[in-house]
Each structure stands twice: as C-alpha cells, then as structure tokens.
C-alpha cells in the first residue's frame, strides 16, 4: 500500500500549480540569499565573513540560511492539506477505499519528501559554495559539521508537522496560515515569557528553531569557533553558539515533538466527519 500511497501523492502533488510555484520560490530565494551571502566581501577592521562560507563553517551557515525559508515550506504544507478539504478530495479518497490513517500517511510521505528536498538543496549548495570558497583549503574538513544537514531535515519536517496539525485543525487555508504564523510570532514567544524559563526552552518552536542556530560569527572569525574547540565531530559534543542544550538532545526533543504532532493530527483525522 505504501507504493500506492506514494503514487497517489506523486500524481496530486507534482501536478499541483501551488506546489510547483512555492517550491520554485523557495529554491530561488534560498539560492539567491546563499549566493549573495557567499559573495559579500565585508571587511570590518580586517575581519571578513568569507570564512562562514568555507568548510567546515559552511554547513552551519547554510543550514541557518535555509531555516529562514522553512516557513515557506510550512505554508506549502498547509495548502497541500487544506486544499484536500477544500476540494473535498479527502472525502473522495475515503469513499474510494483509503482509510483515515492512509490519508495521513500519504501526507507524511509528502512531508518527508519535501524535507529531503530541502536537505538535498542545502547539501548540494553547501558543497558547491564550500568548494568554491575554500579554494582547496579546508577541503579536509568537508565532513566536519555535516550533521547540520540531517538536522535541517528534522527541522524542516518539524515545521511541516506543525503545519499539518494547523491545516487539519482549521481546514481553511487562510485561517490555518494566519494561525500558523501567529503561533511562531508572537503566540509562542509570549507564552515563553510567561512560563518558567526551564519550560520555555522546551516549547516546540523554540526547540525546532534551535536545531539550526545562528553561526557563532565572532567565534569563527576570531578562530575561536566553539565546534572546533570542542574538537569533536560527534553530534553530542556539538554545542551551538546561542544555546546551552547539546544539539543531539535538542534533536531528540524535536523528533519527539514531530511524533506528538503526528499523533495530534491523527486524532483529528479520526474524529472528523468527512
């Protein structure tokens, strides 16, 4: 059945004008910003940002840039879900023999594919820019910090799962998008100011956003990058610049959130009268 679900989603997603337009927009914006960033020649008191686009720092930098555009993919995910309610095609597919679980699994497969696309885009872009900017120097460090690529996959998937929940909950495209964006800014940030700090750092958007932290510009440029100092390629030892929780733990929590969001969506799908 997995093959049939994949085929169903392939037909309806790849031919969707919405999907095509948003994916092209996402790729174009990401590539544009990455290329502009890589070609900036800022020199402030002898410090240049070129090092951010050289191995091994490129992975953190480019994953961080890619994370800016995850919200676009979140909006795409909402549209893919709410369009099914709008066209009443979920209803049609239930009639045609798919189960409520299979409707959900179909969307999960699409979201895994979109996350893989985001990851692949970052990987290819990172390799190309890294090779060009490193000029042969630092190529030995090409795999150092590569962990940011699969972590970006998890982060993108987290954004999409949150979008799935909002889409399933509201079913209306505009309402879901507004609620989704409002949740990012300012609903969750406000909640984080109200609740104790220990709990605030484990709120879903905080956890998911922290997966790709801003590169430690000062540390990198002054040859004092935290990742290098920790001396480790292993993920558990990697501590990001602006958070104290090891990224491996953050990734585990983000993964747990993805599961929770999937279960929440599943409950909605099961309770709903189509």
């Amino acid at each position, binding site marked *: 059945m997995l093959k*049939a679900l994949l*085929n*169903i989603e392939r*037909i*309806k997603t790849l*031919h*969707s*004008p919405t999907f095509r337009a948003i994916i092209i927009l996402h790729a174009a914006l990401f590539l544009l910003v990455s290329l502009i960033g890589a070609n900036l020649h800022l020199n402030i008191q002898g410090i240049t940002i070129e090092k951010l686009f050289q191995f091994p720092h490129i992975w953190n930098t480019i994953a961080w840039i890619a994370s800016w555009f995850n919200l676009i993919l979140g909006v795409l995910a909402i549209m893919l879900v709410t369009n099914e309610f709008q*066209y*009443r*095609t979920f*209803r*049609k*597919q*239930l*009639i*045609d*023999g*798919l*189960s409520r679980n299979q409707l959900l699994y179909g969307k999960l497969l699409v979201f895994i594919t979109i996350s893989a696309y985001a990851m692949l885009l970052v990987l290819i872009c990172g390799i190309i820019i890294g090779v060009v900017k490193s000029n042969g120097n630092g190529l030995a460090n090409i795999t150092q910090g590569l962990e940011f690529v699969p972590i970006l996959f998890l982060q993108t998937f987290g954004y999409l799962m949150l979008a799935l929940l909002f889409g399933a909950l509201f079913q209306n495209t505009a309402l879901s998008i507004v609620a989704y964006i409002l949740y990012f800014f300012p609903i969750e940030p406000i909640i984080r100011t109200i609740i104790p700090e220990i709990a605030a750092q484990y709120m879903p958007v905080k956890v998911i956003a922290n997966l790709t932290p801003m590169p430690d510009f000062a540390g990198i440029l002054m040859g004092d990058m935290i990742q290098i100092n920790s001396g480790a390629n292993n993920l558990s030892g990697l501590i990001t610049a602006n958070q104290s929780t090891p990224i491996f733990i953050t990734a585990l929590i983000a993964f747990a959130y993805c599961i929770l969001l999937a279960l929440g969506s599943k409950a909605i799908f099961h309770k709903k*009268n*189509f």
Partner: protein
Amino acid sequence: MENILKVEGLTKWFGKTQAINDLSFRIERGQVVGILGPNGSGKTTTLSIILGLKYPSSGTYRWFNDSSTKKINKRIGSLIEVPFFYPYLTLTQNLEIVTKARGSGFNQISAALDTVGLLSREKSKFYALSLGMKQRLAIASALLGNTEVLVLDEPTNGLDPEGIADVRNIIKMQSQLGKTIILASHILDEVEKVCTHTVILKNGNIISKGNVAQLLSKKQMISISASNMNGLLELLQNFVGVEILEKSEESVTVSIKEDISSATLNEELVKQGVVPSSITLHKASLETEFLELIKHNQPKNH
C-alpha cells in the same frame, strides 16, 4: 438472498439537530434500491454514514455481513453529492488516483471513460468540464475497480435529458451485471424506471420501504367525468377508500384502494344517481405515491 447491507437503529445528531432517527433497513444482493425523500430528509447523511464518511450518533450498519469496516469501500463504487476531483489534474490522472486507492488496474480507466462518453476528453483538466461532464466523470470513477455495490447520490444532477437517459442505461446495465445499486434521487420518474425497491425518508425517519411494484399496486388512480359534477364530487368525498387528488370542471381524479375496483365504484355511483360519462384508469406513479406519502404519512417505527 444474501444481505449486502444491514442498517439497524441508525441515528445522527448534528449538534441539536437530528438528521436521521432510528433508521433500520436491509438491502439484498442484486436489488436496485431508491432512497427517496425531500431536501433535508437525511438521504445524504444516511449514505455518508454507511460509507464511513460520518460517524453515527447511535446504531450500526454492516456491509457484506462483515463486522469489519476495513477495505469495505474498495468493494463499493460511490458518488456522493457533487463530484470531488483535483481541478488541476486531467480526467485520466484523477481516475488514476481512484484506481490506486482501490488497488484496481489502470487499464480500466479508458473503458470507464468510454462508458460515460468522456474518452475524447481524457486529457482535459477537470476544471474545464461542464457540470454534466463532471457528473459523468464521477460515475466513471464509481465504475472503476471490482465493485459489487454502487452508491449513487443524485447521479443525474446537472445532466441534460440525453445524459439522464445514459445514466439510466448505465444503472440498468450494472444491475444486469449483478451489482447492487443504492440510488438517492429527486427524479422519481427515473427511480421508478430503474429501482426494484425504495426507502422513503421524511425528516430523518423512514415513512415507507419495500418493493416498488407492491407500493404502486396498493392504489389505483381513476379520472371520472359526469354531467352532474357537483353530485359526483359530493359522492366521492363521502366514499370510503377513495381520495380526491385533483378536480377540474370536466373531471375528478381520485385514488382508490386496491380492494375497490373501478367497476365497483361505477356501480356505486350509478346506484347513488350519478352516471359517469367516462372513467379512465391511470397507472399509479411513484411520484404520486411519494407525494401522497410525504403529505400524509407520519414517521413509522420500524
């Protein structure tokens, strides 16, 4: 005969509104069952529940004597309300999704499109179709796969007379292939032409169910003319088992119970001093019977 669908005590509330109340009926293999009722009588709600789209508030339904609902819909081809397809996909692509969901062969698509007269439009996008064509596509979709049952909710919506006749022929053909058909429609003439059984709903309750032929044989319709129309009307109004349906200056149309014959009625009228100048026997129609049931019947408990 084998039970295809058994519905027991089906009830559905939408908030404080009761859409259907304690519906119970059975459908056997090979029957063509018309579910009739005015707008808001609960036809679509009933069909949506038995197809698993909505949950009942109480009651049960069982397809194919199987308590499991899994994979049941793969054996049922359905069209509920208006056609739902992806507007940006071609007809073939939309039907390809249906075949994947049903686990049936891709090669059935052309045959299904041909059956509903849409083969020449297979590459057209769904949004470019007229309402009638969309309805035909939905029927093609219901025909895909190895379905044993067809559930069709208002299948002739938006169709021209030729399209309606085509749908009637498709239904008859599918019935001859041994498929069980459940048909909800407002067009009673169509239902009468194709259905073997009916379930009539009013305000979410069953007010009649059974064989169409039996339903129609219960009453006869007669048009009577006489020179003394006032006397004729007066006599008919007091005649037990006779109900006046329509009156004009030239004639009166009445329905008479099955135990009264037109000859008996003629005899009685003559005895009472009114000599009919003409008596015309009409075949009772489902439409007349339906309207009478809707007008007079209070819900029955089944």
